[in-house]
């Protein structure tokens, strides 16, 4: 029972198998479902970013919409107004998320618990209202629509049309895979172990010589970057850049997805996002009161699967799940 700083072979295999299955799904899924899953993949990246601070870091933020939106606008505005191409625009989105993560973290991490929730919520609200204030450039809730001709990606000497359903799915999967493996490696690393231990007992970690503030700040910066990457990808893959995606609802959603799939599990965010999408999809085809069904599912979850789907599976059957 050694301490490993790398993922175990079986967990690595599991993650690669999940990626392979998702890859195969591109050709197996009917058109409608492929569309749903490509959206799920991008939003699962958002959830994975959220999971890093919430699940592994124990920091309950209610403002992650701002990081998603930072990426969305960082990429969207530069493409729309400055005619940047996809790669630099994507970089601008990630950079915006990183910067915002560092600034918000430096201020919000002076608080903890409920105060941290409120401070992050307020920062996010400021971001949302800012996007509305500059309606001239953002067109507010109506949003900017990125046309098909600007959504082409130069990669390895070829040009890909990101509005094509298959290309879009594969691009979403590429980003998802990258972030999934990154998460898997980082939580097993020395840094990740320290982050998790700080969640369990921060005072103990301080007295072991760890800089708790710096450790959390790094987590928030990485989380901001990942969420921004999801936002930037959303802009270029789905072509919509609007304030709705910066609203409080988009701070609550990743929390729900992560709770449903299992906080502090690597695959939980994907599973939670996927299940939630299909619950809404199926419920709304039968009733207009689909949010009622979602509410009931959540109540059921909290009562019987408090650790989420994968968290429960890990606790009962598969303790090696990362």
């Amino acid at each position, binding site marked *: 029972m050694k301490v490993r700083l790398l993922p175990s072979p079986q967990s690595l295999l599991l993650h690669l198998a999940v990626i392979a299955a998702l890859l195969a799904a591109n050709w197996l899924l009917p058109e409608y479902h492929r569309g749903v899953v490509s959206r799920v993949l991008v939003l699962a990246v958002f959830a994975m970013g959220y999971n890093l601070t919430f699940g592994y870091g124990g920091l309950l933020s209610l403002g992650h919409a701002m990081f998603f939106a930072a990426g969305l606008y960082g990429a969207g505005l530069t493409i729309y107004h400055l005619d940047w191409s996809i790669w630099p625009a994507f970089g601008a989105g990630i950079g915006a998320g990183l910067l915002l993560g560092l600034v918000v973290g430096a201020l919000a991490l002076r608080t903890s618990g409920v105060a941290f929730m409120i401070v992050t919520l307020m920062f996010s609200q400021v971001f949302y209202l800012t996007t509305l204030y500059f309606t001239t450039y953002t067109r507010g809730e109506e949003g900017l629509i990125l046309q098909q001709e600007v959504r082409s990606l130069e990669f390895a000497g070829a040009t890909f049309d990101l509005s094509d359903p298959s290309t879009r799915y594969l691009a979403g999967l590429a980003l998802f895979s990258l972030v999934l493996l990154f998460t898997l490696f980082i939580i097993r690393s*020395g*840094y990740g*172990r*320290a982050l998790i*231990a700080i969640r369990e007992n921060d*005072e*103990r970690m*301080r*007295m072991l*010589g760890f800089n708790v503030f710096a450790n959390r700040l790094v987590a928030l910066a990485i989380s901001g970057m990942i969420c921004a990457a999801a936002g930037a990808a959303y802009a270029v893959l789905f072509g919509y850049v609007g304030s709705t995606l910066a609203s409080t609802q988009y701070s609550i959603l990743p929390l729900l997805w992560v709770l449903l799939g299992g906080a502090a599990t690597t695959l939980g965010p994907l599973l939670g996002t996927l299940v939630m999408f299909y619950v809404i999809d199926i419920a709304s085809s039968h009733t207009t009161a689909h949010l009622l069904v979602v509410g009931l599912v959540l109540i059921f979850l909290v009562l019987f699967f408090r650790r989420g789907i994968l968290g429960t599976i890990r606790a009962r059957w598969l303790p090696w799940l990362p």
Partner: protein
Amino acid sequence: MAAMTATILHTRGLSRSFGGVRAVDNVDFDLEEGEIRAIIGPNGAGKTSFVSLICGRIASDAGEVWLEGQDISQMPAHQRVRLGIGYTFQITSIFPNLTLLENVALAVQSQARTNSFLNLSSRRLNDSAHEALLRVGLGERSGELAGNLAYGHQRLLEVAMGIALKPRVLILDEPTQGLSESETQGFITLIRQIAATTTILLIEHNMDVVMALAEKITVMDQGRVLAEGTPAAIRANADVQRAYLGEQP
């Protein structure tokens, strides 16, 4: 021989009040390198507050703390730990969901100054952690969850985490509290071994432990240093007897 000792840690005018109560009141304190020092005193004398000021867990109102010629008064706790002030908690504070080895590995990771995930070899991490567990006699149980250990063994794990930090000064806050008689004897032997390489500052209520271990005793009462000296001198001190020992049955 006696003249060759060097001061490793000292405080000057160290003070801290909590809502009008002077928990630590203008304390000047000198700790010699390599010694085992016990701090004793009645409940509420300010012993834990005093060592908390030394290791930075709480901020001081006034005064200075020096470690090996360096003023560390303004440093945050984690930095003091890295400079060599190890602290073990009065109330056992371990990670119950982690194995013993993982618990100690966190201390090793901190000591190796690799908060990062790049330059720490997994072998070195495991070897150092295992070595610390062997020293406290928990080497064969390294794979068990810390939460499943009996209380006495959790205290030993605390100490293992303390020595894995390779501190210059190790502060032990009531380490034998709640231990059985035989466990306490084992603890005394262990602390003697650790003292061969580390200066020890010990808060302790059990006078048998204090007399068995301490080379010098500092008596605190109402936030101040009441007396300081060898165990024999402290035993004979009339003030101490009044304030503290006299209350013992």
